[in-house]
């Protein structure tokens, strides 16, 4: 049960290397790439735009629709293209992670679409997708009350760690994976899932770790968003 050292030499509370870029898909209203270690997500936001069929429209607010998809070649064993039960669920929790920060009431009867594509996977893909999607929404100019960053925390062997890689997720003697999304200013938890076994204290400790990690991710997101406007100014 003892997990004494991370294979990639990271400290238990250390994230993998992060990079982010905004404006990676020209046709989209907003777009972004988010990379953490070997996991790469790209996201595009479209809208607010007309929602069809009409009965799906909400006269009080915009509908946020997220779609998470893994490229067939992003994993070691080819994933059949198209949706799966897993991707449908992740799409749903992604919507819930992002909806609370968007001023959806401003755009009744419309839809805001977010498409997330994982092009390289090494654990933490839903969190990378959420971090990318939040930037894409901001880049699309959609009014947001706050920013969202996400990271997975968990327990590997006997240690509470942040940003598990695939090797750690598959840790033989057991690993608990806890994806967490946090809003930047209000520190609201908008995504929380758990898969494994932890005590209450361990969970609270893990959430604290996620909070620290999300702050770091948020800085990278802010930087990437500023970068794109700087480029726009020069160009």
């Amino acid at each position, binding site marked *: 049960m003892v997990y004494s050292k991370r294979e990639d030499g990271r400290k238990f509370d250390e994230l993998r290397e992060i990079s982010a870029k905004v404006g*990676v*898909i*020209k*046709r*989209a209203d907003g777009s972004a790439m988010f990379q953490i270690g*070997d996991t*790469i997500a*790209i*996201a*595009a936001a*479209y809208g607010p*735009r007309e929602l069809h069929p009409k009965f799906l429209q909400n006269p009080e607010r915009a509908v946020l629709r997220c*779609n998470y*998809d893994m*490229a*067939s*070649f*992003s*994993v*070691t*064993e*080819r994933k059949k*293209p*198209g949706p799966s039960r897993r991707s449908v669920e992740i799409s749903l929790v992604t919507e819930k992670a992002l909806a609370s920060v968007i001023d959806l009431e401003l755009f009744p009867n419309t839809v805001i*679409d977010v*498409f*997330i*594509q994982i*092009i*390289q*996977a*090494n654990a933490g893909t839903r969190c990378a997708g959420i971090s990318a999607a939040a930037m894409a929404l901001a880049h699309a100019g959609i009014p947001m009350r706050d920013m969202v960053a996400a990271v997975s925390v968990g327990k590997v062997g006997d240690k509470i760690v942040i940003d598990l890689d695939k090797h750690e997720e598959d840790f033989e003697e057991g690993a608990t994976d806890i994806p967490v999304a946090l809003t930047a200013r209000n520190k609201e938890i908008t995504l929380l899932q758990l898969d494994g076994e932890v005590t209450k204290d361990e969970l609270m400790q893990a959430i604290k770790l996620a909070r620290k990690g999300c702050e770091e991710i948020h800085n990278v997101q802010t930087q990437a968003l500023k970068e794109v406007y700087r480029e726009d100014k020069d160009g």
Partner: protein
Amino acid sequence: MDNEYIISLVDQGKRLDGRKFDQHREISVEINISKNSEGSARCKIGDTEVLVGVKMDVGTPYPDSPDEGSIVVTTELSPIASPDFELGPPGVDAVEIARIVDRGIRESKAVDFKKLCIIPGEKCWIFFIDIYSINDDGNLIDASALGTLAALKNTRFAKLENDKVVFGDFTDKKVELEKTPVTFTFVKIKSGILLDPHTREEKAAEARLSVAVHNGKIYAMQKGGDKGFTESEIEVMLDLAIKKEKDLKKIIEKAK
């Protein structure tokens, strides 16, 4: 209507972005963009971008070709790439692109399927070539074909143990390409023949032709659009494709 504007430009011998009729946008190809695949590439033509990944598995040869492996090409026209694309199973446009790319590789024998045989009649390699559109700014066909070629050219074989793939393990053995057929897509707008159409040009087009060439020979073609071409128009497109073949080859050779 936008189409009328595009047509009026063509009448004046002009294009939206100032290109000549027979000129490509800037093309760039990057390889090994996804670590878990046996081969992968990103191809950009102007703002159009596709990702191509090659994954391998072991399958059973077809009864009529017991000593050959095979390829399966799939295209996802993901709504990430364009407000015009919708979620759902591949539609007719996606299937057409996959078929054109498939034919360019298969009919030219760019990959020798016999070399993909492991045990005749029993086991062979199957290459899954999956193409994802990331940004559609027109001419996804050529971006897909070029990206596929670049990905295949830089594909290593997966590791086998007892005739099963060890997922995540790769060998140093590269896929050999016997030929590198490059694809050129043209559209006809009024009397103008335009290479590498932009999305708005595609919408205004009456007819479309894609041609795959290697060493001056033609290996695959596909005509699209509601109207037809004259013989002399076809000749113009073939000549141009043959003339420009080297330019695209260079881009693939240099891809990093």
